[in-house]
């Protein structure tokens, strides 16, 4: 019996060893064949937001039939990029594409040891990474407008370019390190049947008792903070003197980025009020709840608003988008290269910059925009296809009667230009619907404010405020609860003790 068992044991061991050996062999084999190709291959590790790039596989009916030609996403953007890169530069690039959920997640991933070459965080995270000296600056060639493949620098909207050049951190403009990808503003998506436009056009809607338990707000400190500051300073921000001041823009940004102890305290009180009044703080369900009619209004990023409004249209009811009169938060997501990943590898850096450029080519910009609903920072420069796409989406049909001229000169031509060339004749309701969400009007943009990258001390105070809002304070527990808990626990103890006592006695 024992002999037999020993033998089976040995056989098992043999099999196990062979399997191990074989798998090891396979591993070495693939490694070696990988090495043979490596001479001409670059690996690019990209980390982007979830669902933030065209993944391809469109249906025939999704074809965008512009006058200048059809645009359709057959393959994913990443696949198309690898093909294009090989055709253009003769180098194989292997893209390892992964995604993240929030800027903070990305930061934690980077800090805890994940390496990426190219990532796409929001502007405040870009600033944080810049101050921590973790980014590789964009190369001089990237800004060379004579290179025909440099679609980014030739295509970026003058308005966005200006912001990227004017805003500095530690004396260095954003544009040295970051290439924009998508942008937008914050506002309120609302159901016009239940909420009036006036009510939706202020941050104070969040604690408006008329909409008790009918509004959702973002479960996110920064967005909530901005809205709350807008609400508590509403009177000042909408006053005539404030708006007509010559330094309106600077004053607005200063007020909206106020982190004084007094403001933080007021924000806390306001948000505690909001918590009692709102439907919920939501991370991702806001869009669906708006479409299914569970809520009447919803704090939204403009890119998501386009999607929400589209969905509602499909279901046969109308939603609208409003920008609060106090201020709106303008935000950017942009590509930055990391020192950890790129290091001094020029081939890698070239591939990373080419990826940005490829995604800035007008047809690809349109594919991405169509797929994800957000607005690209690319206006196309000489290539008019991006504007053509906006017109294709929102322009009125010939027989439409109620139309409005919607001027997008500020975005496509820059602020100082006349802009007659870039006007969309749109159905009048688009002025507060998808077109407005995708390309906010100049008037809405004039109230836009960037949100600073708060330093550690400010962040700590704001986070503490947030925890105070969201947590249940032990002092709020009603007395009867303590009493009930006391009775339950003591009776359990008595029962248990009695049992043990009885057992010992016997």
């Amino acid at each position, binding site marked *: 019996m024992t002999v037999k068992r020993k033998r089976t044991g040995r056989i098992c061991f043999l099999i196990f060893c062979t399997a191990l050996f074989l798998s090891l062999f396979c591993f070495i084999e693939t490694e070696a064949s990988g090495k043979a190709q490596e001479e001409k291959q670059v690996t690019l590790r990209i980390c982007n937001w979830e669902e933030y790039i065209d993944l391809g596989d469109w249906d025939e009916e999704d074809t965008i039939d512009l006058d200048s030609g059809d645009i359709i996403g057959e393959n994913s953007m990443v696949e198309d990029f690898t093909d294009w890169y090989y055709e253009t530069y003769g180098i194989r690039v292997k893209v390892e594409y992964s995604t993240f959920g929030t800027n903070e997640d990305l930061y934690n991933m980077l800090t805890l040891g994940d390496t990426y070459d190219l990532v796409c965080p929001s502007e405040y995270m870009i600033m944080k990474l810049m101050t921590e000296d973790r980014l590789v600056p964009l190369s001089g060639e990237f800004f060379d407008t004579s290179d025909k493949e440099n679609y980014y620098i030739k295509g970026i909207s003058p308005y966005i370019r200006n912001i990227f050049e004017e805003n500095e951190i530690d004396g260095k403009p954003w544009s040295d390190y970051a290439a924009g990808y998508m942008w937008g503003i914050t506002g309120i998506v609302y159901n016009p049947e239940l909420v009036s436009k006036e009510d939706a056009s202020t941050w104070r809607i969040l604690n408006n008792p008329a909409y008790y*338990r009918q509004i959702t707000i973002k479960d996110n400190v920064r967005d909530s903070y901005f809205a709350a500051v807008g609400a508590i300073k509403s009177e000042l921000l909408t006053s005539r003197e404030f708006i007509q001041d010559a330094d309106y823009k600077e004053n607005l940004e200063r007020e909206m980025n106020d982190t004084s102890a007094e403001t933080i305290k007021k924000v806390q009180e306001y948000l505690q009020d909001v918590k009692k009044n709102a439907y919920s703080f939501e991370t991702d369900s806001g869009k669906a709840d708006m479409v299914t009619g*569970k809520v009447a209004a919803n704090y939204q990023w403009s890119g998501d608003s386009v999607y929400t409004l589209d969905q509602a249209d499909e279901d046969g009811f109308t939603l609208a988008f409003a920008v609060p009169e106090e201020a709106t938060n303008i935000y950017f997501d942009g590509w930055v290269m990391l020192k950890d990943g790129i290091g001094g590898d020029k081939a890698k850096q070239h591939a990373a910059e080419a990826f940005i450029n490829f995604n800035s080519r007008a047809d690809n910009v349109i594919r991405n925009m169509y797929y994800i609903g957000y607005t690209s920072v690319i206006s196309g420069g000489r290539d008019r296809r991006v504007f053509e796409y906006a017109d294709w989406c929102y322009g009125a049909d010939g027989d439409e009667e109620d139309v409005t001229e919607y001027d997008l000169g500020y975005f496509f031509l820059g602020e100082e230009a006349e802009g007659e060339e870039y006007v969309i004749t749109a159905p009048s309701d688009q002025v507060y619907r998808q077109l407005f969400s995708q390309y906010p009007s100049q008037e809405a943009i004039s109230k836009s404010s960037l949100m600073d990258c708060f330093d550690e001390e400010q962040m700590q105070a704001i986070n503490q405020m947030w925890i105070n809002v969201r947590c249940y304070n032990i002092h709020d*527990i009603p007395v009867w609860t303590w009493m009930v808990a006391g009775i339950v626990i003591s009776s359990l103890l008595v029962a248990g003790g009695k049992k043990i006592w009885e057992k010992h006695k016997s």
Partner: protein
Amino acid sequence: MHKFMFSRKNLGIPYGLFLAVFVMAPLLVLIYFAFTNGQGEFTLLNLTGFFSDPNTLGTLCYSFGIAAVTTAVCLLLAYPAAYILATSRLKAKSVIVLLFIMPMWINFSLRITALKEILTWAEGSLAYHPFLNTVLGMSYDFLPFMILPIYTTISKMDEALLEAARDLGAGGLQAFLKVTLPLSLPGIISGVSMVFLPAMTNYVVLDMLYNSTYIMGSLIGSYFASYNWHGGSMIALILLGIVCLFTLMTRGIEEENTRGGMLL
């Protein structure tokens, strides 16, 4: 030469490795973060901070409250169901048991989404009763974990014991209280620990049913979102401690009980 002898013990190696890499190593990292500050120096501030902050303590109580109420609801629903099921002479018994387990085969978030629609329909808006909804959602989710162990212990019980009780003059209720209930205690205890512990940290249900008040899981999340891994790790560690304590306690009771069972 030392001969390598393959014994059954060696089969445990893969599991040991798994344990070391995925359980022990993360735990050590957790402990490291919990007892250091941003500069990597040893500190107890995270620990004292937890017990002096009314928010974290309140959150702990809130989590406890939700878990306790959920467990109580589950127990009240599950015990009669399991008892009737186990003692009945139904031919279709296994089918009914299957009906109780079946929801577990459907994806959890799908079920909660469906529940969301039902509750919205019933209450008008989910936001009116966040606590109630959370408890309902969790009870719905964890009920099978309570029913199964109780059902198993009751159905394994020797019927001769009940007959003996009846012979000695015990009424139905008395027999239940003195025989069935004590003997099913191990089932109740394992059911309670299988419901109570996950209910304390499961913040997905809270999130999906729009309870805007944090419980422990979401609080850890918010610490991590503000890059405070040290405070977050400490909370996780304290939770782990509570879980361990609870497990030890239930095991103690169980041992007491099996000894009691043998005495009987």
